[in-house]
């Protein structure tokens, strides 16, 4: 905890630039100018003196100022509750000493922190609210609050937990918040009010037995519990608390400075907590989502040295919580993050680096989505590896082997993230790896997760470097898993396909592009492409009829024109998007599908370019979002289901839709706000400024027509999004049901690798877009996820509903 010291970073990696960095947050910078605030913020920091004497010293200084500086002291003490939660017991001791000297001050502080707790709950700042409650609880240890009144508070909260009219997410949170406090105050409560405490434990136990855990399945990183169970988070914490109780509420992790001041504190008058009603929020509330406890390492995985605390020990819970808090606090600065992680106070008593690696992967694999960008975690791991003598590279090698071993039961989204992480990590380490060890998967069914995984890793590595690099690096034994070289394929080449229909026009078109002829002339060429739908049709430029072959000829030739780089592709599509408007007019779905299929034909071997092409087609509104969904579920694409790129394309498409809708909503809100403000000011003013349209435009106030147009556009896009999701779910159901039916008919097992992947991908759609999909829940329930569906498919929907229940 060296927060007070300035740290200087001189780093050649920054191009020889010299950054003066202070390892403090900006609030502390203000504190620097204010000695009182600094005094409080710096309590217990590593000084030559002990923590206890630091606290004592500060309390003596504050006692003098208690009346004159009361407000500032109260404010600062309140700040550190949420800003320095790791120093909870230090500050509760300080408040205890101040309370012993000045009973009223203690009372005022309690009021302040209780008020803050309620505000945090109201504004849905759950973690900060948890810190507040924990601090309040710890004040029992420092004799500021009576054990009786704290237990009354917990009992009142448990009443909330049993109120069936509330969402389970809310009730779970309340119980979690209480359990989170017990490592601190369990012992004291048990000593002072054993019976009440016993009753509380029984009450909580009843709650734990009754609560719905259907969501658990969707959150598991692995589908099986061997070797490490993927425990539901609240279950795990409850088990840890029960074990703590069995150990007589003794734990060795939390420092308790108040013990040193027992003689002073036990003389203090205690306060009773006021009644705290848990605030109800208006409208929909975003409660924290449930999670699983990610465990990857066993104590036998760690090297000789300090032992890894058991999975159900409270120490494990506390350490993981604190390390996660560090990740959260320093997520924007990886060097600071690593320094803070490795500086962790308990680093000699546990295999710290292994726990750090486990916590980071737990965050990376968090379902539904990680809190921060995947590359954030990857860069922190890279930074951890840089330390001399670091055990992290070894831990990462073990991690990779371990994850690889269990890949066939891993959640597909987590597999994606593992692949992405590993390829990126390798790219920073010259792709050095014991590739040969993986040659044992070559003989397996190519659809099996293990060989699929290796080939996906190789593909991602190629994307970050180049084909020859990997083909030279990979041992001969793995050669069959190398993808084909990433080249576009153009079928309108007589040497490849012979004299296929459209060849003549394709050749003309290539020449036309080179000569930069006009749009009319291009359409003229396309007009001559024979139409497989209506061979005798005479094409009329003014009345373009749907000609799938013409679309293919144009699209594929255009993609080839822009095949050199991404920039070329963008220029080509931008330049000729007008042609698409003509030839796709009135073709609806078919035309769009034609274009997407053409993209696939050309870019089959270069999945990165394929993704870019689809992205550009959406950007220039050549195809609709719904068409991408339709295309992915066409029969031709089914064999591609087990490859990662296809789902990257689907989700990138959905995200683009979401982005557009957010942007439009924001613009609409801003436009309406402008109108409202203009109306207010014109109603205020005395002059007769009528809202003349010309004046409005001059003042940049949107007209009614403009607002209506924006609203229509927004509604259209929202409708398109809903349709797209319906298409996606409907197609998933169809494809999975078909597979199940076929397997039943042929007497074959349903659970093939393809089936497992595909079910995983269905789950992924729910998980990656929870909030949007939740909006459509009732439609989905009525139209698609009906009771007659195969129960395995229906189960996913039930689990999803449980997630937000």
């Amino acid at each position, binding site marked *: 905890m060296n927060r007070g010291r300035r740290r200087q970073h001189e780093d050649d990696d920054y191009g020889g630039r010299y950054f003066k960095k202070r390892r403090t947050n900006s609030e502390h910078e203000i504190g620097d100018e204010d000695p009182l605030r600094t005094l409080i913020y710096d309590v217990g920091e590593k000084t030559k003196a002990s923590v206890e004497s630091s606290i004592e010293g500060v309390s003596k200084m504050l006692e003098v100022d208690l009346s004159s500086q009361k407000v500032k002291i109260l404010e600062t003490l309140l700040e550190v509750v949420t800003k320095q939660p790791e120093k909870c017991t230090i500050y509760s001791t300080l408040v205890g000493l101040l309370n012993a000297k000045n009973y009223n001050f203690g009372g005022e502080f309690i009021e302040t922190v209780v008020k803050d707790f309620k505000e945090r709950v109201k504004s849905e700042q759950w973690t900060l609210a948890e810190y507040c409650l924990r601090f309040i609880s710890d004040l029992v240890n420092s004799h500021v609050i009576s054990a009786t009144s704290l237990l009354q508070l917990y009992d009142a909260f448990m009443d909330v937990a049993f109120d069936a009219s509330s969402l389970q997410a809310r009730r779970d949170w309340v119980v979690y918040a209480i359990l989170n406090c017990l490592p601190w105050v369990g012992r004291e409560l048990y000593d002072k009010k054993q019976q009440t405490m016993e009753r509380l434990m029984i009450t909580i136990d009843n709650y734990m037995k009754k609560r719905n855990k259907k969501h658990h399945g969707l959150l598991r990183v692995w589908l099986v519990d061997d070797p490490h169970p993927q425990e539901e988070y609240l279950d795990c914490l409850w088990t840890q608390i029960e074990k703590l109780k069995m150990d007589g509420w003794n734990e060795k992790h939390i420092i308790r400075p108040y013990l040193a001041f027992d003689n002073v504190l036990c003389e203090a008058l205690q306060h009773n907590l006021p009644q705290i009603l848990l605030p109800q929020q208006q409208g929909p509330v975003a409660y924290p989502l449930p999670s699983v406890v990610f465990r990857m390492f066993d104590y036998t995985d760690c090297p000789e040295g300090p032992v890894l605390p058991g999975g159900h020990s409270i120490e494990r819970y506390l350490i993981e919580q604190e390390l996660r808090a560090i990740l959260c606090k320093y997520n924007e600065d990886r060097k600071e993050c690593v320094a803070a992680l490795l500086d962790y106070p308990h680093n000699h008593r546990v295999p710290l680096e292994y726990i750090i690696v486990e916590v980071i992967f737990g965050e990376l694999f968090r379902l539904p989505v990680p809190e921060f*960008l995947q*590359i954030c975690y990857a860069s922190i791991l*890279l930074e951890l590896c840089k330390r001399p003598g670091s055990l992290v590279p070894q831990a990462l090698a073990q991690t990779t082997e371990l994850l690889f071993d269990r890949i066939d039961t891993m959640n597909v989204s987590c597999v994606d993230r593992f692949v992405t992480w590993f390829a990126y990590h390798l790219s920073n380490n010259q792709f050095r790896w014991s590739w040969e060890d993986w040659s044992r998967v070559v003989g397996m069914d190519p659809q099996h997760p293990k060989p699929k995984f290796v080939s996906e890793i190789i593909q991602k590595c190629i994307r*970050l470097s180049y084909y020859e690099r990997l083909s030279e690096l990979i041992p001969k034994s793995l050669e069959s898993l190398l993808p084909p070289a990433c080249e576009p394929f153009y079928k309108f080449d007589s040497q490849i396909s012979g004299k296929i229909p459209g060849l003549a026009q394709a050749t003309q078109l290539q020449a036309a592009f080179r000569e930069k002829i006009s749009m009319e002339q291009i359409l003229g060429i396309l007009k001559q492409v024979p139409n497989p739908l209506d061979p005798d049709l005479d094409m009329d430029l003014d009345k373009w009829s749907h000609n799938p072959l013409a679309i293919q000829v144009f699209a594929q030739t255009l993609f080839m024109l822009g095949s050199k780089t*991404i*920039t070329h592709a963008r220029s080509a599509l931008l330049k000729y998007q007008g042609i698409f408007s003509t030839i796709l007019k009135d073709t609806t779905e078919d035309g769009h599908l034609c274009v997407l299929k053409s993209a696939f034909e050309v870019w089959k071997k270069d999945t990165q370019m394929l993704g870019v092409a689809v992205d550009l087609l959406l950007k220039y509104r050549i195809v609709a979002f719904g068409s991408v969904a339709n295309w992915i579920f066409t029969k031709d694409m089914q064999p591609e289901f087990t490859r990662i790129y296809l789902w990257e394309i689907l989700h990138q498409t959905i995200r683009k839709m979401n982005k557009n809708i957010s942007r439009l909503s924001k613009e609409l809100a801003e436009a309406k706000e402008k109108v409202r403000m203009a109306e207010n000011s014109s109603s205020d003013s005395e002059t007769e400024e009528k809202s003349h349209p010309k004046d409005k435009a001059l003042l940049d106030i949107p007209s009614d027509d403009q607002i209506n147009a924006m609203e229509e556009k927004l509604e259209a896009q929202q409708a398109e999004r809903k349709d797209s999701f319906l298409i996606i779910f409907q197609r998933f159901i169809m494809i999975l049901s078909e597979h199940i039916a076929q397997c039943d008919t042929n007497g074959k097992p349903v659970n093939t690798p393809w089936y497992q992947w595909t079910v995983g991908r269905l789950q992924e759609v729910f998980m990656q877009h929870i909030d949007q999909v939740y909006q459509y829940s009732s439609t989905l329930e009525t139209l698609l996820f009906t009771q007659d569906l195969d129960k395995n498919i229906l189960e996913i929907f039930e689990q999803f509903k449980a997630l937000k229940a």
Partner: protein
Amino acid sequence: MAAATKLSDYRDQLFKGSQGDLEKKLVNSTTLYVGNLSFYTREYQIHELFGKCGDIRRIVMGLDRFKKTPCGFCFVEYYDRDDAQNAIRYINATKLDDRVIRTDWDAGFEEGRQYGRGKSGGQVRDEFRKDYDAGRGGYGKMFGTMESI
């Protein structure tokens, strides 16, 4: 958050406008300068790497003024500043093509800025470089020329 958007010491000497204008552009920019690339690094690699921080609007490869071949830098333009900020947080000082690359805020691409400003056509830093760098044309141009005398 202010500390995170702290600007580096570099200021484009050929920027047309005052220092104040330049700094304003840097503070609002969604474009990054990326340096120390290998001459052989291609656009798709940059797209793959920088795409991990968000959607990229475009990439402009830095070119030798005369040869019009890549000369070891590029511009990456995002749609959102937050994405560019994340690239600085997580990609700056990590490796691409086995080289530690550097990212910095850029005022925004304008035609002409894609060319190296060194006398020989590449970047200025490659004019005076004393060490041998296989990914950046070998020895610095100045020393290369001297050797041939």
